[in-house]
């Protein structure tokens, strides 16, 4: 909504227009960047479309199904996320990825255990890997807690600011009865 119309609406006492437009204004304020014009977005798009850097072209042919293809997929996913990311809460997103990482770590722990049971890994090697997974678990848990704490604080601040703004607008409206 153009600024002039908003100002007119405000001056004529139609604050409800401004209140309804508030989410869009907030979105515009917090995400002013045009992601399609962003350098990293275009680089990700180039990577997805086949303009791969030498490091990927140099991957051995036998591993095309894993590392090379994985990198290609990741680049595509990342390009998509860069585009979508403008309208989402990035910290919550990151928390989501961290939960996936924690799930994968549990999976790894079980697979190591299974490999030992099947006799593919010696007790010493399996214990070493299990120890590493436990250490990673502890560290990842700390990271998750830190991000959770940050997300909670950020959400509360935004909620408080929005309430103050709405209260301020409401107190200026003609329907507001001052004591």
């Amino acid at each position: 909504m153009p600024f002039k119309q908003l100002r007119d609406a405000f001056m004529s006492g139609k604050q409800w227009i401004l209140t309804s437009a508030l989410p869009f204004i907030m979105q515009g304020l917090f995400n002013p960047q045009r992601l399609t014009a962003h350098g990293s977005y275009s680089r990700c798009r180039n990577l997805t479309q086949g303009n791969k850097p030498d490091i990927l072209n140099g991957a051995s042919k036998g591993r095309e199904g894993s590392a090379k293809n994985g990198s290609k997929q990741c680049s595509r996913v990342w390009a998509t996320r860069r585009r979508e990311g403008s309208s989402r809460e990035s910290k919550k997103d990151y928390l989501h990825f961290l939960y996936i990482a924690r799930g994968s770590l549990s999976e790894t722990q079980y697979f190591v255990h299974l490999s030992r049971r099947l006799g593919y890994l010696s007790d010493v090697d399996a214990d070493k890997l299990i120890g590493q997974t436990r250490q990673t678990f502890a560290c990842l848990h700390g990271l998750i807690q830190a991000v959770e704490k940050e997300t909670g604080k950020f959400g509360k601040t935004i909620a408080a600011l929005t309430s103050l703004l709405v209260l301020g607008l409401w107190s200026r409206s003609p329907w507001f009865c001052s004591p």
Partner: protein
Amino acid sequence: MRDYTKIEAWKLADDLTVAVYEQTRLFPKEEIYGLTSQLRRASYSVPANIVLRPVGA
């Protein structure tokens, strides 16, 4: 985007992935598309998901 190489959890997960790749190199051939593949995918998913940090987080 913050430098993910400074995240302690990422460093540990990266070490774990390298260790898993080294250990699974000696797994039997019939497990290439089974346990070997699954174990490798699960292990590299951990640092990969820590790296996937959206802008602004």
